[in-house]
């Protein structure tokens, strides 16, 4: 550009660009209302009519659990609306609180820490009791499943044998720098690097991989790019890749039993149906469901259908 005043124009434009996001927005909005109306209805803004809205996290395993509840409810004549793949806790919990979502599969420990960072409960029973206390008005936790899906520190079998590791406490004896692959929020979670340092005196640095302990995280571990990986305990890859999950004697990581939270729109009968599903959901069952998804690449709908039929629940 030949314009000599360009540099000052650039500086101005930097401000303008920011302002543009503020003032340019009202016009398109006005024009979009009708066009986007239909699609934003599924965005969870209106929990409509008699249908129960079932949400799920943006996590395939959570979607399968949600689909289990959905089909079990449908089998008993309930009308169900599905609202799956909603970001993470900070995004969907406000919607659950507002009543836009009626049933949400959750995980006890993390949910408790979301509402009460200082929580001291470590057993599933205590967590459930504490949850009843801290959940906002109108929400209640249903009976948790035996199945858990919690963060866990994993190493390869070879690495475990080389340094004779069985527990997180053994990591103290490893004399090389430790990197752990995990979702980026792991950095700030109570069971993250700071917690590990406090409970076990071990230093780790986080390599963020945003696939929730999925295949890339596992690949990073197997390739030796990292020494540790945060993988959810119900992930079938732990068995498939022969990984060693390090024990956690200090209870740094809270148990994450599958715990549905329900709004007031969920009556006793509906709650009983969901709890009946939960009663059959063992840790092995959850791993099996997840395996169907990642190894056989089956859809949550098909997985749920087959499993419910197998359990005599449909």
């Amino acid at each position, binding site marked *: *550009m*030949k314009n000599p005043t*360009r*540099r000052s124009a*650039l500086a101005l434009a*930097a401000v303008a*660009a*920011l302002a543009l996001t503020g003032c340019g927005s009202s016009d398109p909005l006005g024009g979009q209302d009708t066009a986007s109306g239909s699609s934003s209805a599924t965005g969870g803004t209106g929990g409509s009519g008699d249908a129960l809205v079932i949400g799920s996290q943006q996590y395939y395993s959570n979607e399968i659990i949600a689909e289990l509840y959905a089909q079990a409810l449908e089998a008993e004549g309930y009308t169900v609306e599905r609202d799956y793949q909603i970001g*993470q806790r*900070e995004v969907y919990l406000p919607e659950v609180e507002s009543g836009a979502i009626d049933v949400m599969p959750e995980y006890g420990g993390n949910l408790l820490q979301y509402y009460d960072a200082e929580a001291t409960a470590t057993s599933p029973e205590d967590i459930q009791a504490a949850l009843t206390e801290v959940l906002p008005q109108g929400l209640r936790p249903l009976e948790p499943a035996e199945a858990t899906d919690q963060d866990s520190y994993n190493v390869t079998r070879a690495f475990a044998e080389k340094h004779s590791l069985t527990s997180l406490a053994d990591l103290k004896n490893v004399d090389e720098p430790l990197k752990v*692959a995990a*979702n*980026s*929020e792991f*950095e*700030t979670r109570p069971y993250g690097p700071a917690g590990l340092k406090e409970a076990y005196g071990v230093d780790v640095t986080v*390599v*963020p*991989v*945003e*696939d929730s302990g999925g*295949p*890339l995280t596992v*690949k*990073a571990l197997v*390739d030796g*790019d*990292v020494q540790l990986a945060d993988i959810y305990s119900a992930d079938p890859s732990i068995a498939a890749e022969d990984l060693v999950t390090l024990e956690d004697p200090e209870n740094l990581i809270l148990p994450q039993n599958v715990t549905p939270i329900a709004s007031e729109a969920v009556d006793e009968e509906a709650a009983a149906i969901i709890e009946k599903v939960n009663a059959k959901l063992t840790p092995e069952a959850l791993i099996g469901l997840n395996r169907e998804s990642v190894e056989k690449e089956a859809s949550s709908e098909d997985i749920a259908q087959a499993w419910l039929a197998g359990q005599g629940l449909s």
Partner: protein
Amino acid sequence: MNQLWEAVLWCLDPAHWTGPSGIAARSLEHLGYTLLAVVIAAAIAVPIGWWVGHTGRGRGAAVALSGAARALPTLGVLTLTALLLGIGLAGPMTAFVILAVPSILAAAYAGFEAVDRRVIDAARAQGYTGAQVLWQIEVPLGLPVLVGGLRSAALQVVATATLAAYVGAGGLGRYLFLGLKTQDYAMMLGSSLLVVVLALVLDGVFALAGRAAVPRGVTVARRGVNA
């Protein structure tokens, strides 16, 4: 506006700047990814673009190819290559190079096409060989347009390079995802501001380079014609 202010404060906090995962290090990483992607993309696109521009052959294919490349969703390419190649730079770099190629390719041949045919005819009449036409006329005269293409490629990559952190690489995207996943708006917005600043700096550098790329004689001649 309040959140914007907090984001600015986040950027200005000296405690956030130092260390291996400080703002300074992450910004350098980010800039490094951008430059590397543009250099690789240029190494691929410039020779092809020049060949297309010089021979006039394959223009349709080049247009179609860069159109298709433009349509490739970066997030998709990134997740795919990461799954195939593992964490680290290889996956994101592939995605960024694909992102940068179309602008550079188009600029490389458009720069040649903008050269006045009469100039080339005159050169041929004076006995210039094809190679001489290429190196002494088309390349220098097409340079300003090419620099423009490099500039838009760099701006696109610098804004998109935040996605590298999605698959375990570094850059300013690290703050962005951490802020996103932990609802730390100041960190998330602050890192976005840093990306914008980085883009501004790059834009300025390329503007200067663009001016320097115009051969002296050409500037005078153009002024003469325009006046």
